[in-house]
């Protein structure tokens, strides 16, 4: 009984503030040889790493593969999104690259492919985050 009341109170308070965790890790490419890795969710950063970024030109479009590696024994349910920019760093207008679901198995590597929507798109950023679960929503 003594345990149940605080537990229910926590559930009650948590239920009213269900905002999903949307931070993750990202990589931004500023030029052909300069990339910046950003970890805004250290917990995910421990379980996941971006180990390689390769770019090339395919049919006059920038073609990119980003290699992700899992540093965790269990499967991870993730989602990723590419955003494309022109040579001046402006986001490509009207390009709505969707979040895509990704199941990464324990200690596995995976290549995420991205293709520029137009020949103006020269640099990109890739964001990876966890699919938010209800357990995460109760955390601050």
């Amino acid at each position, binding site marked *: 009984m003594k345990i149940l*009341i605080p537990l229910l109170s926590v559930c009650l308070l948590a239920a009213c503030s269900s905002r999903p965790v949307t931070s993750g890790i990202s990589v931004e490419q500023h030029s052909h040889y300069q990339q910046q890795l950003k970890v805004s969710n250290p917990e995910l950063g421990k379980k996941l790493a971006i180990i390689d970024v390769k770019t090339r030109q*395919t049919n006059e*479009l920038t073609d990119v593969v980003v290699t992700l590696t899992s540093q965790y024994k269990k499967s991870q349910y993730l*989602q990723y999104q590419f955003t494309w920019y022109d040579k001046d760093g402006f986001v490509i207008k009207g390009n709505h690259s*969707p*979040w895509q*679901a990704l199941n990464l198995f324990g200690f596995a590597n995976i290549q995420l492919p991205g293709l520029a929507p137009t020949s103006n798109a020269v640099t990109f950023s890739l964001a990876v985050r966890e699919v938010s679960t209800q357990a995460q929503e109760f955390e601050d």
Partner: protein
Amino acid sequence: MNTLNKMATFNKLTGLALIGLSTLALSGCANKAVVSYGDAQAIETTDINFGSTDLQKVASQMTDSLLASPVIGTMTANTRPIVFVERIKNKTSEHIDTESITDSISTQLLRSGKFRFVDMGRVEAAREQLTFQNEDALVNPATAVAFGQQVGAQYMLYGNLSSIVKSNADKADVYYKFTMRLMDLKSGLVEWADETEIRKTREKSTFGW
């Protein structure tokens, strides 16, 4: 005796508090209607049926595959081929607006600047407008667009969407396969084809939250 009474009162109070909290927890925030804008690109998992995320995934993967294909590279090197979208046959058991998928694909291909499209869905409207321009006395004949000047499509884009659905008491599984082809209308050859798959599973949650 006194201690027993105190114990009983405490138990009653905690019981009441528990009931009160449970009611609050269950009804809690559910009574308040909240309207908010969501991310149109976010992953949507409301149910197992074909949804916005599947549509976006299919459209983006097909466009990427078409634009990165070596055959398309040769085809679009010096010219912008003219394409018409036939349709995507819906062979699933669901009602799916396949025109919405082809709209997304043709928009993304047009935006890439490598293809041009003719819209077969607006032929009648164009004909009506040209008839008006050429036969109605209201229009200056010098500015009327003449008949017989439209350009014919060189390629046809078409495809199929099929699904396999399986379920039992605890689990439901759906598998979608989307196939797309580009045919050269002159030779009848299929110049490009690709397919993409989607698997969605619904299982009963361990916590019935």
